[in-house]
């Protein structure tokens, strides 16, 4: 606190200078642009080239989209409105919206039924996707398949009720016996369900009213994006349990079971999905009893489920292999038997590791549902290539339709993969 300095030095600053902003070329957008866009000469060239590409794409598409026509009833009318300017005829989307979503043979007065099922699906999926929601909501998820079946296909409500009843019976038997022995509970439950279904088959046939509450709609009338979603959701949810079973079977120490699983998985993974769809459309019917009529939708579901189960099995096998050996040994040393060890120790961890892989398979599978258009089912792509582009009204409207289909698939698939990344972060319990 001496004041000698202020006398001996010519000038001493006594007040702190307020902090100055950084020079304009060392901070803010300019610095960011120099670092990230124009760091070196080649980099600057790349930036300019990219800007040019973006410019070309935007000037090519934006006016086309912006000037699009939304409310005409045919291509010729749309061309009249446009008067030779190049712009989109989005009116094909508005005019054929219902066909794109529901297919062209689903009765239009019943469109509310799949729509309602879709709303219910969102409610049912929510507790599966987001763990923070109350667990009671899972009851809705359990009810969803039966309600959705009834809404979309219609017919007597007794069929889905009987199906649900079988599961309920199986659950009670399982819960009763699982404490003694898992195998007893599992197979007992399965047997009870089969008996229940067999008996209720007679009951449904006897009790079903002549005119059910919801008119029955055959599977061949399903189509459009609805068909893609139904195939995707049904096959993914069926193939996860099957995939777990196959993965465990492949790891089994029993040679017979192991080799059956290996052959199944390698066979299915070795052939393209199209050949399996050919099997569904021309060959599978030969393997059912002659008097049974299994419709194409069910045959396709069977084959796609087998297909994705093989892939999911490989993902889960990766998860099982990634677990430290100590987990298996710890489970053994606690005296747990095989089903207990798997249920309580191994699978919860292995499935958690496998989630990103399973989601990848699910996204791939959802994209692959478009392949059913090759075996003349009218899913979204089938609708576009078949009834819509072949109609005299809209013959030649390629980009609007294909672009819409691409956009719809992009939104769904990108959404799922973003969700999976969020889930991965959410489930990460290791400390990094």
């Amino acid at each position, binding site marked *: 606190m001496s004041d000698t300095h202020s006398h001996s030095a010519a000038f001493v600053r006594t007040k702190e200078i307020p902090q100055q902003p950084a020079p304009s070329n060392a901070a803010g957008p300019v610095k960011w642009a120099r670092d990230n866009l124009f760091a070196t000469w080649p980099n600057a060239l790349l930036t300019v080239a990219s800007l040019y590409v973006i410019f070309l794409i935007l000037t090519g598409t934006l006016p086309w989209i912006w000037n699009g026509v939304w409310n005409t009833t045919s291509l010729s009318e749309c061309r009249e409105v446009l008067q030779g300017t190049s712009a989109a005829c989005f009116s094909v989307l508005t005019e054929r919206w219902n066909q794109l979503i529901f297919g062209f043979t689903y009765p239009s007065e019943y469109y509310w039924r799949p729509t309602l099922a879709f709303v219910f699906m969102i409610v049912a999926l929510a507790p599966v996707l987001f763990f923070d929601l109350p667990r009671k909501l899972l009851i809705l998820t359990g009810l969803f398949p039966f309600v959705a079946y009834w809404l979309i296909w219609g017919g007597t409500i007794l069929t889905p009720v009987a199906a649900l009843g079988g599961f309920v019976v199986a659950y009670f038997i399982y819960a009763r016996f699982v404490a003694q022995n898992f195998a007893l509970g599992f197979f007992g439950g399965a047997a009870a369900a089969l008996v229940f279904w067999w008996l209720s088959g007679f009951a449904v046939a006897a009790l079903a009213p002549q005119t059910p509450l919801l008119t029955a709609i055959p599977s061949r009338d399903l189509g459009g994006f609805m068909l893609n979603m139904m195939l995707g959701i049904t096959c993914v949810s069926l193939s996860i349990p099957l995939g777990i079973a196959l993965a465990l079977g492949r790891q089994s120490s029993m040679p017979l079971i192991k080799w059956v699983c290996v052959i199944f998985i390698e066979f299915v993974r070795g*052939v393209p999905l199209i*050949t399996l769809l*050919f099997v569904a459309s021309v060959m599978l019917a030969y393997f059912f009893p002659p008097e049974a009529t299994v419709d194409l939708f069910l045959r396709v579901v069977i084959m796609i489920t087998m297909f994705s189960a093989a892939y999911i099995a490989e993902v889960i096998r990766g998860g099982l292999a990634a677990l430290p050996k100590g987990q298996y040994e710890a489970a053994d040393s606690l005296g747990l038997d095989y089903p207990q060890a798997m249920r309580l120790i191994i699978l919860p961890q292995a499935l958690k590791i496998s989630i990103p892989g399973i989601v990848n398979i699910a996204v791939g599978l959802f994209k692959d549902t*478009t392949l059913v258009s090759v075996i003349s089912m009218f899913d979204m792509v089938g609708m576009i290539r078949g009834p819509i582009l072949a109609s005299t009204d809209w013959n*030649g409207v390629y980009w609007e339709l294909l672009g819409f289909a*691409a956009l719809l698939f*992009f939104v769904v698939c990108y959404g799922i993969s973003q969700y999976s990344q969020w889930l991965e972060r959410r489930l990460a319990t290791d400390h990094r």
Partner: protein
Amino acid sequence: MSTLSDPQQGSFRLSMLLNDSRYRSMTLQVIAALLLALALFYLYSNLAANLRAAGLNISFAFLGAPAGYDINQTLIDYNSQSTNLRAAVVGILNTLLVAFLACVTATVFGVFAGVLRLSNNWLVRKLMSFYVEIFRNIPVLIWIIIIFTIMTATMPGARAYLGEDPEKDLLLGMFAFTNRGVFIPAPIWNEGSMVVVAVFLASIAGVFAFRSYARKVLFDTGRLLPTGWPSVALLIVPTVLAFFVLGQPIGLDMPDPLGNRFNLTGGTQIGAPLIALWFALSIYTGAFIAENVRAGIQAVARGQTEAASALGLRPGRVMSLVVLPQALRVIIPPLISQYLNITKNSSLAIAVGYADITATLGGITLSTTGRAIECVLLLMGFYLIISLTISTGMNIYNNRMKLKER
């Protein structure tokens, strides 16, 4: 004193089949085998009953019968009187052709996009992740149809190239892009052309021999022989010499706008279906490969790059000598399964009418002969053989490349 005692010998009770771990797995397997046999027998008896009811039998004799349909793009001689077997072989070759082409271009796209996704340039990075996300998240079938539509709906007809004063000129006087496909020059193999080809193959072998010699010299004596320009010279000079010494035996058959009033003549036509399939599979799979490449490069620990720089290696050498060899170990296995995916996805050819094995054997032959079971089985067999071959190769490669640990 031991509390453990051996199980008593000879006192086998029936309950031990389930409760004794020595017998339990045997019991379970016997049960499983019985169930499996029962299921297979059930399926087989259904099949037999259905076939009897439909008056069919399983027979592969149809393969020898004339196919009765034409194929527009073939690599070997084929006409509608050829057998179904030959049609299938045409299809197999077409499948292999498009799979090979798509593997090459998908790798190029993928490596390009994957490396650029790690660029310092923000805009390029964003553009490449845009490419990857767009192409990964839209079904490949839609891409195939979009590109096929671009080919057929926006390209001019062959007529635009015809006549003395055409609307459009051939690109470089060689290439014509029409709605039926692209016309390119076809090589003409005159006498002596095989010698040129042989010289070329020999010089490729020579390049490899020279490189391994240079490596040996480097390891033995520490002398670094130049390999860049000698390799190029070795590759080009003998072939060019042979070409001119033998009097230019290989010529080019150009697409000719004047030969015919209706279509281009001469040259080779690459059909629009092939181009659509090839290009769509390439960009679609390229997006997946880009992710593999990016993951592979990022998997190389940062310390490796820093250590290499500390040793005084220049950035190019850091990449080629340190980062890439380690990244390749991570990249190649998923890359090969992407190749497998390309081969399997090439079966979507049927959607645009490219005559691959699925379209010939599984499409037209199946519907004209009605031999559904036989055709589908043969089709699956073909794809299985390809897949198993590739995955066997991959396993061998993986075992060779695996990090040799203790």
